[in-house]
């Protein structure tokens, strides 16, 4: 037994934690202010406060940016290194975009701005913790803190059955995933005797053999739990349903931020804590990557709901990202980080356009809502076009560079065939990405959706007559900005590369 007197208060680096405080604090403030009624508070003040919190967090993150230096705060439970900061930045940007996209969303009228944005900020806090987690406990806390608000947000459009269904599905399947993860963490802890990533890494090979069944079973369970969060097949099935059912701004947030957070912790856990058993887990993850790429792309082809299509495409993209993890190299880490950033931009642009359209179109989020958009509203059509081209990996968009980087990492990490799988996946994906473009620009034509007969899609978030494209400038702005960034980074990617290189320095164990 350890005598009580010997317990030292943990060393806490408040400077490093500042971004987290900003979001948690912001979350609380927003909750409280949101209790006040009034149009001004709901429509202006609360969003402004939330945005301010995120902006502050961004500022603090930038201030903390110090490549090569890993600040172990709270006794090493959290690492504020470049990986964590970089991904936090992505969460904050995604959060800002979501705030803009939620401004006129029906869900806000239903739940109130305070709850909506408060939960959003809470989820972001969880992501920040997750991205920096260097300990099994913080890992779990982070994951739950990010998930639980999202369960609520998904179900928050109480007036719509599919939203509730999505929420409950997400909750149940998510909890199974969490429980699995927890059990895996317990096994890893039991095998290595440590909850610390550093301790686990040290324990492997010393206290426990590389081929220890307990350890590897734990790894398998952890992989399952995290793969679930990252929507890796065969744990992807919640994704299309939840994405479709959730309010669209939340879908967009989940698509980009949750995925980034999940990959953050996958990178940390596998490429840091479990780096020594890479030879064991890499083939399994590679197989999952292939499966994910194939299933994701196959599923996306026959979708007429844009949100569902993007969900499936998100599954496929998770497969690409996994390739960066599999190789277990610094290059892989950099490529993954790079692609996550790019992925955020592409998806935000796409979702922004979907949101703008579903609010005014009788077709809701069905692909037909985009018909002839090129003529009617080029300001929306161009961002969507760019987003689709980028997702498909066309050059002069950041999507191309991102894929290039990933394939580069795969080939250099002696997984050349995985690089080719990425390419094969991209080929299949052309079918559905190009269809979207065709619908927007090529006038009337019959949309062939090969399998299931098209299902009548109800307008997801209701649509108000006053909300046409011109009446929602913030949505258009988000779309245009994200698309522009996609193109600019496709031509001048160096800034993002610099960041990615800094991120690469965070996990020192990698070569």
């Amino acid at each position: 037994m350890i005598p009580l007197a010997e317990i030292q208060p943990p060393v806490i680096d408040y400077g490093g934690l500042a971004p987290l405080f900003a979001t948690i604090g912001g979350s609380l403030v927003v909750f409280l202010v949101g209790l006040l009624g009034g149009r001004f508070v709901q429509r202006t003040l609360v969003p402004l406060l939330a945005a301010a919190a995120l902006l502050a967090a961004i500022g603090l993150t930038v201030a903390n940016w110090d490549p090569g230096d890993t600040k172990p705060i709270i006794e090493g439970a959290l690492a504020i290194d470049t990986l964590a900061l970089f991904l936090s930045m992505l969460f904050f940007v995604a959060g800002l975009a979501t705030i803009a996209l939620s401004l006129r969303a029906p869900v806000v009228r239903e739940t109130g701005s305070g709850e909506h944005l408060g939960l959003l900020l809470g989820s972001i806090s969880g992501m920040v913790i997750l991205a920096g987690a260097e300990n099994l406990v913080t890992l779990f806390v982070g994951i739950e803190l990010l998930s639980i608000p999202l369960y609520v947000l998904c179900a928050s459009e109480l007036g719509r059955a599919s939203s509730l269904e999505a929420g409950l599905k997400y909750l149940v399947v998510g909890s199974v995933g969490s429980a699995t993860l927890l059990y895996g963490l317990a096994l890893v802890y039991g095998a290595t005797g440590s909850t610390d990533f550093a301790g686990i890494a040290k324990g492997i090979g010393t206290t426990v053999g590389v081929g220890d069944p307990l350890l590897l079973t734990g790894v398998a369970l952890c992989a399952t739990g995290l793969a679930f969060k990252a929507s890796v097949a065969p744990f992807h099935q919640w994704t299309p349903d939840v994405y479709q059912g959730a309010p669209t701004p939340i879908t967009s947030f989940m698509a980009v931020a949750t995925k980034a957070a999940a990959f953050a912790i996958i990178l940390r856990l596998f490429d840091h804590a479990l780096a020594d058993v890479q030879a064991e887990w890499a083939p399994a993850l590679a197989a999952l990557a292939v499966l994910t790429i194939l299933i994701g792309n196959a599923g996306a082809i026959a979708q007429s709901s844009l949100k569902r299509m993007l969900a499936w495409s998100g599954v496929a993209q998770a497969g690409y990202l996994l390739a960066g993890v599999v190789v277990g190299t610094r290059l892989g880490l950099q490529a993954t980080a790079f692609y996550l950033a790019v992925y955020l931009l592409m998806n935000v642009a796409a979702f922004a356009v979907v949101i703008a359209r579903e609010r005014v179109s009788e077709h809701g989020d069905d692909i037909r809502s985009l018909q002839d958009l090129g003529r009617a509203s080029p300001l929306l059509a161009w961002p969507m076009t760019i987003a689709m081209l980028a997702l498909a990996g066309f050059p002069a968009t950041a999507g191309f560079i991102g894929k290039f980087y990933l394939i580069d990492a795969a080939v250099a990490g002696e997984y050349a065939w995985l690089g080719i799988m990425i390419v094969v996946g991209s080929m299949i994906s052309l079918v559905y990405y190009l269809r979207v473009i065709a619908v927007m620009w090529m006038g009337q034509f019959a949309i062939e959706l090969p399998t299931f007969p098209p299902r009548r899609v109800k307008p997801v978030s209701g649509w108000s007559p006053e909300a046409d494209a011109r009446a929602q400038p913030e949505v258009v702005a988000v779309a245009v900005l994200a698309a522009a960034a996609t193109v600019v980074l496709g031509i001048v990617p160096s800034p993002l590369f610099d960041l990615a290189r800094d991120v690469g320095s965070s996990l020192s164990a990698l070569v």
Partner: protein
Amino acid sequence: MFTIHLSIVVFLPFAAGLIAAFLPARVGRWLVVAATLGVLGYAIAMIADFDGDSGGLQYVTDDAWISELGIRYQLGVDGLNLFLIALTALLWAAATLWAALRTEDRPRLFMFNMAFAETAVLGAFCAQDLALFVVFFDLMLVPFYFLIGGWGEGDRVRATTRFTIYTLVGSLLMLAGAIALGVLAGPGGDLSFSLAVLAERPLEAGTQQWIFLLFAAAFLVKAPLFPLHGWVVDTYRATPIPVLVVLSAALSKVGVYGFLRIVLPILPDASQHFQDLMIILAVVSILYGSVLAFSQDEARLVVAYSSIAQLGFIVLGIFSLSELGSQGALMQMVNHGLVVGALFFIIAVLTARAGSTSLARMGGMALRAPVLAALFLVVALATLAMPGSPNFVAEILILFGTFEDKLVYGLVASAGVALAAVYMIRLFQRSMHNRTEPSAEPRELGGLDLAVIAPLTVVIVALGVYPQVMLDRTDEATTSKVEAAATAADGSPSAAEAPQAGPPGGGAPPGVQVQP
């Protein structure tokens, strides 16, 4: 000394297209035409100024683009791409002019896409960095996707989707191949995609082979060669004429150009290894394309299948792995571009008069349109490689190159020459001769159409009279490209020695050489 010339050439159309997109359509379309003419002027000046005795690159631009990935913004001109650039410039000038006179539906977007496409194609021709080449190679599909899908005829969306997916499948495979090439060739993470550097970093024969297949997939689809031509029929039917002109004339050349520029020098052992396979594909394409061209009723498809045959000849020349063959192939690329461009314009004119693309509905046009008939005749004779046409010089070089080592294949291929006579003369006869169809309305060529078609014809005739103007300038470059593959022994990693051999005449290796 680095120059900015090529950057101007490449990006001038795009810039003009972008500006034109924000100008009134009336002004904008002529701005784009002016830009394409400007590029043409530049290209002609380059031909005049070109130093034919040097095998090296001229007008080089070389900057780091994405240094993290070792991608350089490297442009250059040598004998290999000089005339292809000129061809591109000429055809785009003709096609945009043609389009400027006609397009009524969303003209600004159309012109923007045309300009964008020219930039991409020129970029692919100029690129001296593999990754940059891939970028432009993929990029060029975007404007074509819009052009075919937005302004096409018939089942245009299906056609454009098929076209884009087909070609992108190829180019994505090439992307993987290119990255693998850069990564595997680079010692210790020293990533470089510069063609000159890659040529000096030979890979093992086994690695070369699978990378070769990836590249071949891209280039053969683009060409297209049998049996990868599944996109051709739909696309050629649906594509609007000015787009079809540049599509079949310039775009299809990028692929075969890639063989000469990239595959032969960088993957010499694999080129040697797959020589027979490629030659067989080429020969089959020649025969198959010819026979199908012969049995088509639709004018566009006759030319489509004839293109397959012609591209078969080009690939045959390249994979004869002889200097003569490659030289002929290069020349044939330009010639085919010229004739096929002119042919499609003529077919457009014919279609307008017959009210149908079916040959059965044309006929007797020569009666009221002698000028059209004369131009068509010249073009048709050039297409079937009549001696005295530039195509003849090219085909005789290709055949001579093939005969040297692969006499039997060469003999089979020469049957294609005779078949070409059958389908081209048939096309000419069915449209211009015989009784006039009651539904057709024969009418002479308009002055503006003449202004588009006649210059192409003049260039064809001029090249036929004096082909040496091209051969002079392309000789050195082609020779140096074929050399490594020609000397590589099958299956052995002799590529290690090949680059050291150097071109004949004691020139430097085919690296970046800057002309003052």
